[in-house]
């Protein structure tokens, strides 16, 4: 048993513990900057354990094969560490104002990230379930963080109850899978599944996809997403939309690719249908939203649909495209949400129409939001464009032309609502100046995210190479 393999997760847990202790010993007066510094240190140490273990390095496994560290997990873990770091930087005044409870908040975010990292490395269903629940339960708390606001509390409770329901369904699917194969090890399941599809197996597959579909907000398991994204504090929404979603996709592709290759034909069809419905519903409903967080919630649903297109491709190339897409999506969505944290803080409103004339009041925020939205819409040369190209290309090669056609149509539709926000910011005159100075940490986080959007676009060949290397280690 090689406990050292858990060092990245342990570092985050230790950082959380140190923050809580420091808070206790400073009589609840630990400053925002001190908390951020401690968290950054924890994240840096955690990343330092991961970087030397290169993407293409030899996979190491421990805990009787329940936990694995390979290129795939390292890619996802670094992505999630980066996302956590940027969310903390970009949380702005929310963190400054979370009187007395900010240390707990940061500690909880770090622990959630640790849980998501465990989830990504799980190769055994019990481990997978426990890390999933660890992450979900802390997420419910995070969503309800502003417990004195009805919207936040409602968001937390809704997420919690629906998540519990989806977990129960997922568990029943796992139980069936266990019953059919007698295995909880993912590769053990693949070994036992040689006979092809039986009714019980197909039922198990449907239940698994419903449970995982909930985590990545695939339609029709998505209905919690808009409510929770709108009700939760914006930095938490940002965190949910990137870190949790990335982990969700990591689990989906791992389970499908390593445990269920025997029924690939079946799950490819189901995922393709989910992808088609998800991107279409997400984009269409986003068009009529007036609250920007809600609009972005539907936008993330649509993005999940595009990513599912890559999952449906089911090839190594498709997997690489999914990994690249998640990196591009993480940078882009963080850019958008961090900008919104600050804009909403200044204008006191999350309504799209109140963003009028923003470019005159806050040029950098407006520009960052515009770039992020254009990247989400998939315009060159931004990250989102290449992400879509790679995913669609992979799908075309496996004969999913109809799905790609639908995806392209959807991208065209999506431009409509993204451009509407940009139109408000740049074309409609400003009603009144909302003076304000952004916290330097927020500006730094935003700048890094936007730089990522450009870099992932312009050097997409390089990053796609990394993603493909990481993807290859999954099935090795």
């Amino acid at each position: 048993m090689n406990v050292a393999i858990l060092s990245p997760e342990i570092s985050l847990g230790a950082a959380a513990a140190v923050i809580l202790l420091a808070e206790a010993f400073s009589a609840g007066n630990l400053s925002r900057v001190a908390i951020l510094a401690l968290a950054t240190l924890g994240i840096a140490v955690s990343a330092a354990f991961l970087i030397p273990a290169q993407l293409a390095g030899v996979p190491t496994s421990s805990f009787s094969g329940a936990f694995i560290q390979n290129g795939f997990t390292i890619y996802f873990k670094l992505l999630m560490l980066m996302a956590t770091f940027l969310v903390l930087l970009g949380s702005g005044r929310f963190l400054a104002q979370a009187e007395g409870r900010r240390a707990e908040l940061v500690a909880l975010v770090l622990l959630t990230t640790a849980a998501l990292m465990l989830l990504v490395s799980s190769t055994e269903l019990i481990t997978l379930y426990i890390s999933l629940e660890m992450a979900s339960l802390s997420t419910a708390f995070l969503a309800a963080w502003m417990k004195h606001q009805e919207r936040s509390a409602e968001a937390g409770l809704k997420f919690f109850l629906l998540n519990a329901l989806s977990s129960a369904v997922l568990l029943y699917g796992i139980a069936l899978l266990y019953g059919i194969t007698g295995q909880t090890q993912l590769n053990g399941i693949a070994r036992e599944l040689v006979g092809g599809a039986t009714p019980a197996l197909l039922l198990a597959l449907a239940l698994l996809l419903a449970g995982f579909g909930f985590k990545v907000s695939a339609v029709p398991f998505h209905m919690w997403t808009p409510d929770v994204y709108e009700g939760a504090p914006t930095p938490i929404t940002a965190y949910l939309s990137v870190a949790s979603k990335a982990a969700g996709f990591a689990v989906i592709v791992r389970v499908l690719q390593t445990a269920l290759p025997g029924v690939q034909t079946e799950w490819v069809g189901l995922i393709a249908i989910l992808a088609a419905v998800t991107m279409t519903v997400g984009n269409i409903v986003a068009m009529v939203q007036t609250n920007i967080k809600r609009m972005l919630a539907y936008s993330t649903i649509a993005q999940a649909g595009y990513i599912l297109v890559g999952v449906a491709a089911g090839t190594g190339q498709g997997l690489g495209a999914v990994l690249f897409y998640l990196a591009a999506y993480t940078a882009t969505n963080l850019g958008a949400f961090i900008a919104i944290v600050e804009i909403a803080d200044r204008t006191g409103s999350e309504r799209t129409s109140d963003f009028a004339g923003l470019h005159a009041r806050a040029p950098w925020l407006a520009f960052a939001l515009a770039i992020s939205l254009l990247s989400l819409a998939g315009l060159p040369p931004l990250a989102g464009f290449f992400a879509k190209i790679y995913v669609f290309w992979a799908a075309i090669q496996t004969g999913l032309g109809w799905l790609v056609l639908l995806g392209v149509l959807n991208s065209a539709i999506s431009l409509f609502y993204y451009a509407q926000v940009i139109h408000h910011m740049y074309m409609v005159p400003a009603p009144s100046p909302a003076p304000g100075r952004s916290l330097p940490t927020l500006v730094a986080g935003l700048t890094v995210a936007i730089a990522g959007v450009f870099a992932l676009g312009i050097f997409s060949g390089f990053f796609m190479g990394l993603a493909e290397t990481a993807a290859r280690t999954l099935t090795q």
Partner: protein
Amino acid sequence: MSNNAWLIAALPLGAFALIALGARRSPALSAWLTILAIGLGGALSLQVLREIAAGARIEQSMEWLPLGHGLGLTVGFQVDPLTAIMLVVVTSVSLLVQIYSLGYMHGDNGYSRYYAAMSLFTFSMLGLVLANSLLTMYIFWELVGLCSYLLIGHWHERPEASAAAKKAFIVTRLGDFGFLLGILFLYWHAGTLEFRGLEEAAAAGRIPAAALTVGMLLVFCGAVGKSAQFPLHVWLPDAMEGPTPVSALIHAATMVVAGVYLMARTFPLLEHSATAMMVVAVVGGFTAIFAASMGIVANDIKRVLAYSTVSQLGYMIMAIGLGAMSAGMFHLFNHAFFKALLFLCAGSLIHLMDTNDLSAMGGLRRQRPITFIATTIAALSLAGIFPLSGFWSKDEILAAAASTNPLLFAAALATVFLTATYMFRLIFLAFLGNPRGQTHDHPEPLSMTIPLLVLIVPSVASGLLGTALFGNPFGSFLEGRAVTAEVNLPVAGISTAVALAGILLAWVLYGDGRVEASARLAARFQPVHTLLVNRYYMDHLYNGFVARIVLGFGWLSNRIDLSLIDAFVNGIGSTTISAATSMRRMQSGQLQAYAWAFFAGTVALAVVAALPLLMGTR
């Protein structure tokens, strides 16, 4: 130098970055950064031109979008004669326009923003001409469109400017959509987007003939949008809402010729499809005469020039469609200078009068003698009067038309006539007669006068580069081999006569200031008296007949534009919105409803998964 030709484009990008990063706080610094970057770029371009003339050819590219299976996309640049010419045109005109803007835009609130956008535009335009593949070109193609949008809407507080910017963006996007489809289509068949690879594929017959025709016609859609060809020409006259130097650089000399450049660049492909060639020639020829006819009825000085630009672009496109690619490029080269000069002259008048309206001008030759002389020279050049530059290139195009397609030749001749008429109508109305409006009495800044003087030189002489007199260096350079130019004397004679007739008509109709003087002369010399009668007769003819036809033609074309474009834009999207509203209602906020959706989704997944079993297909 040619190995590092990308530096020429990188310089203005650097200027843009510096302005955006902070130099924008000082307007003067922003302006001079732009001028310095473009000036350096111009010097480098001349060096590149020399190396290319000495026989150098450069192409470099890198893997950008690996797609596996040996497929993928590359980006890169190439320098060949076509590129070298465009580099010189873009940097030189851009440099002069930036200097001119020092005076013209002085005191503008968005001075730094203006120069930032101009730097970005120059970078994008240079990138466009350096591109070695359709993909790279398309990226810069969209970027110049974006810059054009920003610059047309520079005075965005004016609703007309915002509307014009939007119209330009939307209309050119229509063409770009076709262009993108064309790119995908060609990639599908040839497996590459690099120009060299495409040429080889076309030459080796690896692209089926029908596919090549379809692909090239789709690519041509991009040129139709960007170069304002019928029926997508509607945006260019409106784009005159932008500052005049912008019109000179973007909407006369450089960006709008990108479509012509695209067709010249893909000419080796186009050559293989007679159908596509024919379509290109006809669209160009029709646009030429169509736009010129509208130029006659416009009263806004910049709109006259805009119609003229559309018409001349039609000329170039027609030349390429007729197979006379080098004649088209030669006209592009000459046109860039004299049309930029015309716009800068118009800017000089607008700066003086604060109006674009020709009927409010008049008699300006006294206040702006240099502008008057410059405008006249440029107009003569545009009208194609020997030996100014426009004469040589127009003659080559006319000769090409005369030898291949009589109908197009006739259209081109008619265009020559109309061109001369509207240009001299503009000159007579603006400069001759008595002043009809208020003018500022401030002198013109030197920074505005110098570019005018400099541009007179190529407006007069750039055409000599393509004459037999000097052994046709332009054609030889472009084709990479010795090419002789022949002046087709009958064609040259006819076109000159037609142009003179056009000037004469303008004189008869609009030379107000000298009508009385001529009348007195006629009274003294009996034989000339008959001419006076004739003059009345022609005036009547014009009012009663020609004007009605010409006006009607203009009115009709205007109607077609409005109904076509408006119907298209308004028709999009209302059905999707209603679908969205009904779907939104399902998101009721009720947890129960969400749980039911989850349950229903799970059941649906299970049913779909089991479908093959239920149907008994497995």
